[in-house]
């Protein structure tokens, strides 16, 4: 528990759980992109996943644990940071902080709310902007993303995820002390590619459906 009580320890837990969620996103988008192959493939992939009940539920529980610890640590550290600067500057001019680094907390809240909406929309089918049949994944996706406001919610959330990753996919290795010394420690070519690629791949799906490229 000393590990968890220390700021560095808590931050390391956030780094590890963040990477776990990043790995999930890569697998998630790889499956999602089957929407461009066709209804048969996507529905078959979904059915295949559901047959692997043990693997699926293990992954879901690991992810849930990752989300809960990530958010708990973030909340506790944010409160601590707020107390550490209880008097704000009249004037603070950031020199190197990016929009991404400064929006990690607000962006994190946006993402958390979106994940709940997303699960209710396409996993459980509780929210039904369009007709929903659990086994007809392709039809559910296409039906949902034909509606402009559903797409708008996804576009905003995916931008928030992209920004969150632009900072997180770079900083995690520094938090864990894995990065090697560099003359330009703020440069992040790999994180840039990862965040832009994931944002673009996820966004391409509602966009393609909204403009009628995928029907």
């Amino acid at each position: 528990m000393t590990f968890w009580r220390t700021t560095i320890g808590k931050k390391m837990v956030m780094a590890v759980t963040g990477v776990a969620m990043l790995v999930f996103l890569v697998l998630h988008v790889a499956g999602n992109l089957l929407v461009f192959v066709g209804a048969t493939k996507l529905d078959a992939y979904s059915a295949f996943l559901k047959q692997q009940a043990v693997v699926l539920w293990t992954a879901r529980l690991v992810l849930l644990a990752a989300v809960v610890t990530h958010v708990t640590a973030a909340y506790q550290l944010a409160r601590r940071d707020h107390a550490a600067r209880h008097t704000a500057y009249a004037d603070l001019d950031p020199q190197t902080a990016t929009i991404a680094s400064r929006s990690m907390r607000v962006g994190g809240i946006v993402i958390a709310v979106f994940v709940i909406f997303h699960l209710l929309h396409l996993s459980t089918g509780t929210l039904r902007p369009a007709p929903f049949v659990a086994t007809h994944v392709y039809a559910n996706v296409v039906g949902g993303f034909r509606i402009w406001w559903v797409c708008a919610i996804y576009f905003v959330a995916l931008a928030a995820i992209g920004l969150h990753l632009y900072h997180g996919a770079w900083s995690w290795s520094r938090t864990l002390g894995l990065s090697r010394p560099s003359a330009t420690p703020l440069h992040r070519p790999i994180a840039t590619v990862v965040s832009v690629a994931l944002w673009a791949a996820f966004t391409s799906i509602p966009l393609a459906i909204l403009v009628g490229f995928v029907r």
Partner: protein
Amino acid sequence: MNLSLDVWRQSDHHSPGRFVRYEVADVTPDMSFLEMLDVLNERLTMAGDEPVAFDSDCREGICGSCGMMIDGVAHGPLRAVATCQLHMRHFREGAKIRVEPWRAAAFPVVKDLVVDRSAFDRIIAAGGFISTSTGSAPDANDILVRKEAADAAMDAAICIGCGACVAACPNASAALFTAAKITHLGLLPQGQPERTRRVLAMVKSMDEEGFGNCTWHGECQAACPKSISIDTIARMNRDWVRASLFEPRD
């Protein structure tokens, strides 16, 4: 040059503070920022007013005494210098400049622009030293240090403890200061015997002093008058996790 300053005035830690506007005339571009404040203070004193309190000592960028937020930037707009080495030529004629003390719960305001940085002393006291006798000058050459390690250690040892890293950090984190000390000693052979104990104790002390945590904005590195790299923080974290999980406690 004629300048208009908004300076934070606060009589002590318990009193509320406020910005006071001062018009400062006849400033030469060759004055340092502190000399410009000296000019202001002379005039305030002559007029029977209380001079603006600020810390300074060597005025050549090596002691770490001075430091203030100038227009929202720690040590002002010029990179890699302390406030004493910032000259008025970097401001334009008629500039309106806001001057604030470092703001952090762990750095309470003593008076005006003076803050209490003894939290740093306590972090050092927790482990920022070596207990072995290093002998006299000739003995220093008995222990060989790799050139790369010596260079990297000196790049961290250059920290003057001014507190700009804490001041500039949106979280008021002391990670760069603590990491610089840990890196400096951890890279040298003389620092090895206490390396595990040192990182655990200094990080514990840093947390206990009420500093925030590092979220990698990189602001500390930009504010540091000695340009110490945030790579030292990654190194501190590596040392800390190794000490926490893998090293036997002594």
